[in-house]
């Protein structure tokens, strides 16, 4: 069993290394084959043909952060759901009702955010 687990995740490690090699190899091939002739105009930031105006690191609206916070909450819920989904029948009804309670709390959280207008992209 331990040996199996080892063999499984060795494949994951190899895949990660191969993935980096694949992208790196393509970039290396480009480095060897492509011409390079740097000029000032070429390395300017693209702004539809005009000279760039002002700073590029502009601010983005705060609602992106609100959605990020909501995402965090529900993604953590999903992490709890995965082990529950495969084992809750063995534990019995209590496991189901506990998760139902958990989902309902989060559901009310979603409803609250909805009523507060967070989900509206105004």
């Amino acid at each position: 069993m331990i040996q199996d687990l080892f063999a499984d995740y060795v494949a994951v490690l190899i895949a990660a290394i191969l993935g980096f090699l694949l992208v790196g190899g393509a970039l290396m091939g480009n480095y060897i084959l492509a011409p390079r002739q740097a000029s000032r105009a070429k390395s300017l930031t693209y702004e539809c043909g005009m000279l760039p105006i002002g700073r590029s690191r502009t601010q983005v609206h705060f609602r992106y952060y609100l959605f990020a916070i909501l995402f965090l909450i529900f993604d953590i819920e999903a992490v709890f759901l995965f082990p529950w989904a495969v084992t809750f029948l063995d534990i019995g009804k209590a496991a189901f009702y506990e998760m139902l309670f958990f989902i309902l709390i989060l559901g009310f959280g979603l409803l609250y955010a909805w009523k507060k207008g967070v989900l509206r992209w105004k």
Partner: protein
Amino acid sequence: MIADNAWLDGLIRMGAIALAMPLSVIILTYLERKISGRLQQRLGPMRVGPYGILQGLADTIKLLTKEDLRPQTADRWTFELAPFAVMVPVFLAFVTLPFTADLFVRNLELGLFFIIAVSGVSIVGFVMAGWGSDNKYALLGGARAAAQLISYEIPLVLAVVAVAMIAYTPEAGRGSLNLVEIVDGQGRVPFIVWQPLAFFIFLVAGLAELYRQPFDIPVAESEVVGGPFIEYSGIRWSMFQMAEFVSMVLISVLASLLFLGGWNWPLGNGAGIALQVPLIFVKTSFFILLFIWLRFSLPRLRIDQMMQFCWQVLLPFALLQIIINGWVLVYGWPDWTLGVSSGALTLVAGYLTYRAARQAAEQPVSPRLHRVGSVM
């Protein structure tokens, strides 16, 4: 195992995938261009080779020999590492993706969870590309990509959990995250019959995760001029393109494994090994064709519609699907109750979507959305 040594075995299998991947991307690019040409009553690529079949090869050579530009003000390491952060996670997901009962790299016990976990990492790459390019459009596109991809990841994950709950194996009973077991569990009836709502949610959220039309808001040419990839050129840009096509294959294979019974016949078990490959190929091609077809049939959603649809329709219905599954399984109700309840909820979700779309079509866009910057 091909070889006794786990390292060698993994290397051979992953090497085969690494070779097949660029090839399939070249074929898919050609197919997409041909099909889009057909859908728009033109011929598509015709010049390079007979019927343009060598077009993909020509494109590869062109991209490989194109000058690699990096803006002077770009953040060097963020800019250069972004293609890795997008491509490598997609590649990693193929470690555990089974194509037939015996054709996979490794059959991980937590396969489904592994795929969901690693493919979520790509989002970091889009934000890196957006931030590192030091470009206004790229930054906006990166923020949009982050907002869209993280939002649609939740319904996608919950739909997958719903399937994992009802997967049945004779040894361990209900509940499995092993993809081979999930497919074997749909011997008689594919899960699309028991879980039409989860299928609908998976399909829509998967399409949004691919940021293809009608969900191409992060990369929309007419709004953010290509989004996070605006400053990328040559092979560095094609890494993003490759990641998009490979994840299209990933989502299509996953959808046919989870909902259409993978390598089984639609209503029976145990197709022979010679038939398993054609069966999964046909089911996967169906989804790929659907994605290409939708691209040229539906107009792009507005960003506010897209976010509201995710959080106000898909997410509540995905939670409902999980609760119903748990209820039916705990009380041991027959399987058809799953199909009936899920089907009824699909109709409700479809009606709500239809009504919202009608309302959006009838109402003029609110003046606030016209203001510069407010739909950014």
